[in-house]
Structure formats: structure tokens, C-alpha cells
């Protein structure tokens, strides 16, 4: 199976974004995993529910009255009304969802099912897809990241990055690796949230920038955390919500060297099951060769197909032979003969007619002369 697609070598770049030519790393098999945006979307949706905090209405809300219905016969609606007197509140409707100050319909409860569980295999599938998608420039570009000048994708950087301590150094590194334009995009996207979230402590929003995946934090986190848009994860704890933010695949990821090498052990390849995830093997793709164009031109497939019909057969308009002579002739060539005969006959008949007419007139005329006519002669 061409699943064993060539594992190209990925070069490692040092902090100055120069290629360290001595030891390129073979692409971990995860990057060839099938990309399933539907799985990723589903899992992302479910997982993002897990961070939720419960909200509900107070369970006493709307019930802190001793209202009772006045019953019938008082010319008022039968809703329970507040007892007593001496205040506006007395006699007002209570308890119902339609009443002012009443409890709501179906008061929200804290035991709503806030969290969702997702099958482990599905979670891993989604992760593998997300990692694979981060290695395809087209997908990362389509997500909107600015990676035109990045030296290589997936971007692997030497472990020295993990030892950076100052944000200044981090910025310099990003600049050198040409990831800074992505962060500039984040800066430009900083804006206020639309809607009530502003008053609910979610005032500002911004785009997501590059994701840095490291193996060991030796200052890296503190160096990078103040740069807007940047997220940091350890390889051991890959998070779909970070790898596919919004449920869409293709985040721009910067891997450190060791982190990159860990991926093979974490996910395994199709031949070798994962060393760390018990009994896990990378998902099988539905199509081993997805290049449609080449498939359609392949001999094995062409052999089985019939000859292509390139001639376009269009609908022919149906002509009525009774009114369209050519159509008639197509069906019955003898009709030409019949028609011709008919034409000739009428012609002959018409020729005879004037002679007969003149003769008839001559016969008529003398009769007319005998009788005196007061009538004016009709013009012919």
C-alpha cells in the first residue's frame, strides 16, 4: 500500500533560522495521517464543553412568596396572588413564568450535563488529523496564518529555543524564523468583542498566532507567554483545542527538535504501534492514494472503462410533417410526387376557369340588356 508514503526529511533550524544540515529528521508518520475535518470538528465541539462552568438560576427564585390563587368569582385571573396588603406587591401575580417576579419556565439547574465524554480513539484520531494538517502549507495558509517566508513546514527548531528566558529573545527568534508576520496579524486583529461579552469580562478578542510545542520548559514558557497570539504546549499534553482552534485544522505550529522526535513514539506509525499509547495505531485512511488526477489517468483504471463518448448528442426538435414539408418528405418521399400532382391539377383548373367565366358572362350579358336596370352596375 502506498501508505508507506515516503517519509521526507525535515531539516532542523537553529535559533538564527539557519538550517542545521547535519541531522535532518524523518517526518513522523503522524503527519501522513488522514485528515478528517469532520472528526476534528466533532471532537473539538465536545471537548470545548469540558471547560464550562455551571450556571443556573437560584432555586428559590420566584418562590419566596406565599401567594395563593383567589379562585373564581372575583373578576380577576386565577393566577396565585400575593397575600396581605399595604404594599404594591400585594395582589400581584406570583409563581408563574408569565408573572412579573415569578420564576422562569424550566429554571436552569446546576446538574445540567455540562461536560461531554469523547472516546479515546476519536480523540486520538482528531489529534493525529490536526497534527497532519499542520504540516501542509496549503491548509495552514487557508486558516489565515502568514507563513510565506517560513523556511519549512513543519517548522522544527533546535532545542536551544527551550532555554530562552527573555521575551526580547523570543521576539528575535520569531523574527528570524519569519513567524513574526503572523504575530503582527494578531496585533492588527485586536479588537473589542461584539455583544454583551464586553461586560462579562471578555472584553477583548484577537486572532490565534503560532503554536509552540516544546519538550522541556527551560524558560521557554515565560519568554513566549507575553507575545500576543502565541500558545505553548508540551508534546506530552497535545491539546486539540490548541491544535485546531475553532474546530478547523491547520494551525501554524513551531516544534522544538525533541518534541518533534517524540511524536513518533507517541503516535507510532502504521507498521509500528505507538510505544506510549497502549494498543494504539495510527488511523487507516480510506484512500491510500488521494491524487484524483493521477488516478483517472492511470492505466489500470482506464483499462476497465469503456471508450469515452466525446460526441455531444443534443435534443432534436420534433417537426410536424403535416405543416413542415421537409419533415414530411423525410418520412414519405412519395409525398413530393403527390403534392406536385395536386399543384399541377389546381393550376390546370384555374386555367380552365377564366375561359368558363368569360363564356358564362357572355351568356349572362344579353339577358341583362333585355331587362332595364335601375341598379348601378357593380364594378369588377
Amino acid at each position, binding site marked *: 500500500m502506498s501508505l508507506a508514503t515516503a517519509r*521526507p526529511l*525535515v531539516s532542523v533550524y537553529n535559533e538564527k533560522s539557519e538550517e542545521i544540515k547535519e541531522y535532518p529528521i524523518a517526518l513522523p508518520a503522524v503527519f501522513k495521517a488522514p*485528515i478528517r*475535518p469532520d472528526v476534528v470538528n466533532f471532537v473539538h465541539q465536545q471537548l470545548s464543553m469540558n471547560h464550562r462552568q455551571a450556571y443556573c438560576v437560584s432555586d428559590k427564585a420566584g418562590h419566596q412568596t406565599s401567594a395563593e390563587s383567589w379562585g373564581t368569582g372575583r373578576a380577576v385571573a386565577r393566577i396565585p396572588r400575593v397575600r396581605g396588603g399595604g404594599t404594591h406587591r400585594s395582589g400581584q401575580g406570583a409563581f408563574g413564568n408569565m408573572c412579573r417576579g415569578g420564576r422562569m419556565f424550566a429554571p436552569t439547574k446546576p446538574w445540567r450535563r455540562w461536560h461531554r465524554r469523547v472516546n479515546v480513539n476519536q480523540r486520538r484520531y482528531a489529534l493525529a488529523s490536526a497534527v497532519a*494538517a499542520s*504540516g*501542509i*502549507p*496549503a*491548509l495552514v*495558509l*487557508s*486558516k*489565515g496564518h502568514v*507563513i*510565506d*517566508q*517560513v*523556511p*519549512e*513546514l*513543519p517548522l522544527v527548531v533546535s532545542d536551544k529555543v527551550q532555554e530562552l528566558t527573555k521575551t526580547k529573545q523570543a521576539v528575535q527568534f520569531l523574527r528570524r524564523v*519569519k513567524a513574526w508576520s503572523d504575530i503582527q496579524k494578531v496585533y492588527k486583529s485586536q479588537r473589542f468583542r461584539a455583544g454583551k461579552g464586553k461586560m462579562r469580562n471578555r472584553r477583548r478578542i484577537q486572532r490565534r498566532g503560532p503554536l509552540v510545542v516544546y519538550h522541556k520548559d527551560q524558560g521557554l514558557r515565560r519568554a513566549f507567554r507575553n507575545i500576543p497570539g502565541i500558545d505553548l504546549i508540551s508534546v506530552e499534553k497535545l491539546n486539540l483545542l490548541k491544535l485546531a482552534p475553532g474546530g*478547523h*485544522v491547520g494551525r501554524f505550529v513551531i516544534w522544538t527538535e525533541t518534541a518533534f522526535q517524540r511524536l513518533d513514539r507517541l503516535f507510532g506509525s502504521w507498521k509500528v504501534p505507538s510505544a506510549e499509547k497502549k494498543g494504539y495505531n495510527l488511523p487507516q485512511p480510506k484512500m491510500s*492514494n*488521494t*491524487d*484524483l*488526477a493521477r488516478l483517472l489517468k492511470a492505466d489500470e483504471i482506464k483499462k476497465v472503462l469503456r471508450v469515452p463518448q466525446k460526441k455531444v448528442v443534443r435534443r432534436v426538435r420534433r417537426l410536424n410533417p403535416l405543416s413542415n414539408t421537409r419533415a414530411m418528405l423525410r418520412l414519405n418521399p412519395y409525398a413530393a410526387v403527390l403534392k406536385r400532382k395536386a399543384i399541377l391539377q389546381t393550376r390546370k383548373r384555374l386555367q380552365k376557369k377564366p375561359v368558363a367565366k368569360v363564356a358564362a358572362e357572355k351568356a349572362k350579358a344579353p339577358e341583362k340588356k333585355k331587362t332595364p336596370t335601375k341598379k348601378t352596375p357593380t364594378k369588377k
Partner: protein
Amino acid sequence: MSSHLVWSIIRNNNAFLRKKRNINKPFSTEPNNLTNLSSYRYNGLVHKKTVGVVDAPDKKGFTVVYKKATKQNKPRQCIVKRTMKSGPRRSLAKLERLLKANKYRTDLTKAALRRASAVLRSQKPLPAKKQKAKKQE
């Protein structure tokens, strides 16, 4: 991964897609799209070989941007730019020759020529409209 795969992931959902009401064909704002339509053929990200035509930086002539098929994973090394400065007829002929001689995305030649002509036309000085207005007054 194959361009078909990536296209089917991207086609309805990407940062460059522009859809507006009452307009049936979605547009696309990615840089190397010759017709700015969002379609498999004209997409500038999905394929191994792409052609883009842009205004040249000094507003004279146009620049052809094309992708090197071998450097897929290296965005920085992937793109080659060639500026065509000679007059319109010659540059268009050059463009056509560039694409046809290298058999580089020949299905895009017409679109590339069109775009190049449009760029060149936009660089011509605008016709004198002001005079007419004065005369009418």
C-alpha cells in the same frame, strides 16, 4: 497531500473565501489566484504548480509569480518571481511562452494573459475626462 484532498477540506471553509448575498460564485482573495474565483482550478494554494500575476512594484509591467513544484514544504523557497517590463505585446508573449514552453499549468494560460492585460491596462494613464466636463459647463 493531494490537491484534491486539500481542496475538499478547504472549499467551503477558508480564510480567503468571500461569499456575498445574491452572488452565486464565491470569490477568493488568496494571492496566487488568477481569476479571484474560489474554484479548484484557480486556487492558488492547493496545487503543486501555481501561476500568479501581479502589478510590478514600480508600476511598470507586471510580475509573474510561480511555484517551484519540488519545494512544496518550504514556503520561502517555493516561489519564483519574474518581472516583465517590456511593452505589452512583448510581455504577454513572454508570459505565454513561459507557461507553454515549460508546460506549466497550461490550463491557466488564458486566464494569466487576461490578468496580465488587465494589469497593463490599469497602468495606462487615465483618459482625459475632465475636459469634457468643462465643455459641458
